[in-house]
């Protein structure tokens, strides 16, 4: 630890409690950081690709998660190291931005770090490496843009979308029924998509899961599924042509916000109060009835009396419906959320062709289906599966597929998967390297090497000879000058990704390269790590 002395030879205190802190400087700091980043990437490396393995994570309370999704694995890991945390952040931001490729981005960053370490050993300054990487990433992104293909689809012809979603799903445990799940995801996205503005609001897609049944029973519901049942056990279980009143006020006497007191000091007052109370309940139910509602969905609970009155007047009701669900119901049925009984009007009612209650298994669990809505702009994907972990993993996989479909609607450019994009970028970057004079050239070449590591990992996980396969594909790409050759992970027999229908979105791939480069640059620039030592 460096110490500074003043003119009398006494040591300055620069950092508080200096001796209790450990400090790494210069090349050691970079090496330590790179090692940490690589360690994280190594964990995820075996999860990449269709034949990637899963990780089992046991949480602090003993709960078990089994996942193949990079972002989930990293998030659940109890990471303490600062650099490792950066990598976790990296995969999370890929998840937020794109939703897919969270494993790939970390593997990519790990490879970049590994290459950087080699360059550091050669004595190249970290800043030069960082700059070289920056240039290289620009080349790669431009190259991707050039080779990207637009593909056309519309509401009736969504086959290309399904193919892309299948690529995403094939690396998950759900790949058994990837076709049907991909179709569900695409249909869901198309149902809520605004094709004019090329925008998709994923909030409109609700993903519900219920343990039991099998994965094949997973279905897309053009409507809303609410995990609630009718408030009174004897209310009808099925309502056709429902007019739904969506209320956010409880079926209870009013509770003004301002403080008030009602003093009862005589018998008459007591009586009138009682009368009013009864009248109040009556009025509330009457108002709902008057506007023609045939179903009441309420955010709050009701009193027993109100419940019975509703039942008595043949007005089924659902209580304790969450705010988000309420909004979705409002969107789907074209109704308005009504905060006060006085404001109920027939126009504000939502309409649904069919509302029904369905029970599952041997337990008393019921769910409410709201279907054939006036405005089908909100859909629900209802997942069934053998156990809780399966459902959770399916939810994550569906989320990824939804994100991919959305990205395609936003920007319909695609590149080819199976490592094809990485290989062609690697070739392009390698070729570009020679044009740069100076030390950066080495860094750019290193970048090209790093790009190779993704297809390499894919081949490794698929049980192929990594180096042999990669060099074969590479030479094939150069020879035929076609950027569509990738790793044949599924043992189909061809490595033309066009034939295998393995696509990825252009923005996803670009984002992966940019994000990985950014984080690596950041890590390279750190030359001093000061941390509290063990206490």
């Amino acid at each position, binding site marked *: 630890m460096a110490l500074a002395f003043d003119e009398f030879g006494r040591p300055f205190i620069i950092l508080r409690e200096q001796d209790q802190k450990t400090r790494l400087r210069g090349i050691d700091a970079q090496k330590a950081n790179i090692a940490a980043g690589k360690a994280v990437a190594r964990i995820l490396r075996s999860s990449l690709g269709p034949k990637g393995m899963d990780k089992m994570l046991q949480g602090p309370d003993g709960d078990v998660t089994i996942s193949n999704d990079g972002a989930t694995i990293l998030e659940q890991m109890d*990471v303490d190291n600062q650099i490792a945390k950066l990598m976790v952040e990296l995969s999370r931001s890929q998840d937020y931005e794109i939703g897919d490729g969270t494993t790939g981005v970390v593997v990519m960053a790990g490879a970049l770090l590994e290459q950087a370490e080699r360059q550091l050993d050669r004595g190249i300054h970290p800043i030069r490496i960082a700059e070289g990487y920056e240039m290289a990433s620009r080349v790669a992104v431009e190259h991707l843009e050039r080779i990207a293909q637009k593909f056309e689809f519309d509401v009736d012809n969504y086959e290309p979308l399904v193919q892309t979603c299948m690529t995403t799903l094939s690396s998950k445990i759900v790949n058994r029924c990837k076709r049907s799940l991909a179709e569900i995801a695409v249909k869901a996205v198309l149902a809520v998509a605004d094709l004019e503005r090329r925008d998709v609001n994923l909030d409109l897609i609700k993903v519900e899961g219920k343990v039991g049944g099998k994965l094949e029973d997973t279905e897309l519901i053009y409507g809303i599924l609410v995990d609630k049942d009718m408030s009174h056990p004897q209310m009808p279980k099925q309502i056709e042509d429902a007019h739904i009143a969506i209320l956010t006020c409880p079926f209870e006497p009013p509770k003004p916000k301002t403080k008030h007191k009602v003093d009862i000091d005589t018998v008459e007052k007591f009586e009138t109060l009682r009368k009013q109370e009864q009248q109040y309940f009556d009025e509330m139910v009457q108002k709902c009835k008057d506007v023609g509602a045939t179903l009441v969905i309420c955010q709050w609970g009701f009193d027993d009396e109100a419940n019975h009155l509703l039942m008595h007047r043949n007005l089924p009701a659902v209580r304790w419906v969450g705010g988000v669900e309420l909004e979705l119901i409002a969107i789907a049925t074209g109704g308005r959320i009504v905060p006060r009984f006085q404001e109920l009007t027939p126009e504000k009612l939502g309409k649904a062709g069919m509302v029904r209650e369905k029970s599952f298994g041997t337990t008393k669990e019921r769910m409410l289906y709201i279907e054939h809505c006036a405005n089908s702009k909100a859909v629900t994907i209802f997942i069934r599966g053998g156990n809780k972990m399966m459902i959770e993993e399916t939810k994550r996989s569906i989320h990824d597929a939804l994100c991919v479909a959305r990205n395609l609607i936003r920007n319909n450019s695609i590149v080819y998967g199976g490592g094809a994009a990485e290989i062609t970028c690697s070739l392009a970057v390698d070729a570009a390297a020679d044009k740069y004079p100076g030390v950066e050239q080495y860094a750019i070449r290193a970048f090209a090497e790093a790009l190779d590591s993704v297809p390499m990992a894919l081949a490794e996980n698929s049980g192929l000879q990594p180096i042999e396969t990669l060099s074969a594909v590479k030479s094939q790409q150069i020879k035929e000058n076609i950027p569509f050759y990738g790793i044949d992970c599924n043992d189909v027999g061809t490595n033309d990704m066009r034939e295998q229908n393995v696509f990825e979105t252009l923005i996803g791939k670009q984002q992966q390269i940019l994000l990985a480069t950014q984080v690596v640059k950041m890590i390279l620039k750190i030359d001093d790590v000061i941390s509290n030592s063990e206490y």
Partner: protein
Amino acid sequence: MPIDKIFKDDANEEKGERARMASFIGAMAVADLVKSTLGPKGMDKILQSTGRGHSVTVTNDGATILKSLHIDNPAAKVLVDISKVQDDEVGDGTTSVVVLAGELLREAEKLVTSKIHPMTIIAGYRMAAECAREALLKRVIDNKENAEKFRSDLMKIAMTTLCSKILSQDKEHFAEMAVDAVFRLKGSTNLEAIQIIKKPGGSLRDSFLDEGFILDKKIGIGQPKRIENAKILVANTAMDTDKVKIYGARVRVDSMSKVAEIEGAEKEKMKDKVKKILAHGINCFVNRQLIYNFPEELFADAGVLAIEHADFEGIERLGLVTGGEIASTFDNPESVKLGHCKLIEEIMIGEDKLIHFSGVAMGQACSIVLRGASHHVLDEAERSLHDALCVLSQTVNDSRVLLGGGWPEMVMAKEVDELARKTAGKKSHAIEAFSRALVAIPTTIADNAGLDSAELVAQLRAEHHNEGCNAGIDVISGAVGDMEERGIYEAFKVKQAVLLSATEAAEMILRVDEIITCAPRRREDRM
């Protein structure tokens, strides 16, 4: 430069072979634990809880055993989870699903040691599971059209389910009871409507199904103990002091006399309410909430039977049975549907008085009274009966049935074996392994019965080589026998769920190549 640790202090990480080994061993340990309870001659387990009182449960039900285990191994948790789901979804086969998953993993372990990649094994298992399902589908028997036959099918299923439980001595009796009860539900799967009342004393044989409805409550004092042609109002309302629900209301008085007045008004209010209730022309009033002494007295005066504090399910069931609606307001007597029954009386079972409603209008619900020597016997009897009821209610909806006694496993194993022969490549090893895992179930059944499993299974396999064979293991006689003649049947839905969930769980555990355990959350109170 060595890598600093990435994880927090107590967190650890197991990789590759070690991780796979850890999960295999954990899962197999759990499977072996419940293995000895499989089949009609399976043994029971005693579970002692660590909670207060160290209460003891004696059971043979896989889901119950696994639920009460404290398990730290994550893979074992997956198995516990599937058994729980099996219990919720179909109710029976909770042991089989765990044993099958355990066997699948045991076979997978052998394959992994002979250098076959887990992904290849998974691909093989998937193909095998699909093929096994097809095989079962080809051999299902569906007697939905023929009501009489269907009923006898159900009886047989119930008997098969019950014969592995404590009730096996009186399985016919209980099977009859369960089938009757389920038929009363008329296709609904809401088992809540079947009430099981446990009363220690007597013997299991004294248990009975009551056509009417039994409520474990007492009749208020001074009220009639027997009512014929009862009109029942089922209510959920406060019969203590009715609170004023308007927010902020409070009573403010300035003299004693006013207090008395208000009290009088309150009483008047209650009286009014009782009057309104009486205006329905009822002679029995059942409330979910408390009934205070004052209104109780009023009811007694009017000669009305008032029952307080019936729990919520009781009320719902009563509503179902008597056809009345659950009321909370009483202003419109003419439009409230009342429940009817021929006779209400107080009956004695053992030491306790119960209220018995007989001759009810709609028979959607019913009560089963279980008698037995001790609480443990009763608890186990209830669980067994619950299993049977679950299976039956699922079978009513999906009427396909299969033979039992290891027959379905052999049928599947045969088909899967054939598939293995046809499949090229490494996958065929996995498919073969799947069929071995399937055969492990009849083997275990035979082993548990103390029979020569190797001999029996070999015989069985030979028998199954013939087309359309009905052979299975007859544990009672200890030989291979015709399952159709012996009347051993199982529900298709149960078998299918066992097959699919076990494969799914095995697949899930196989895919794992790394286990990351987070630091356990520190408990503050232990300090």
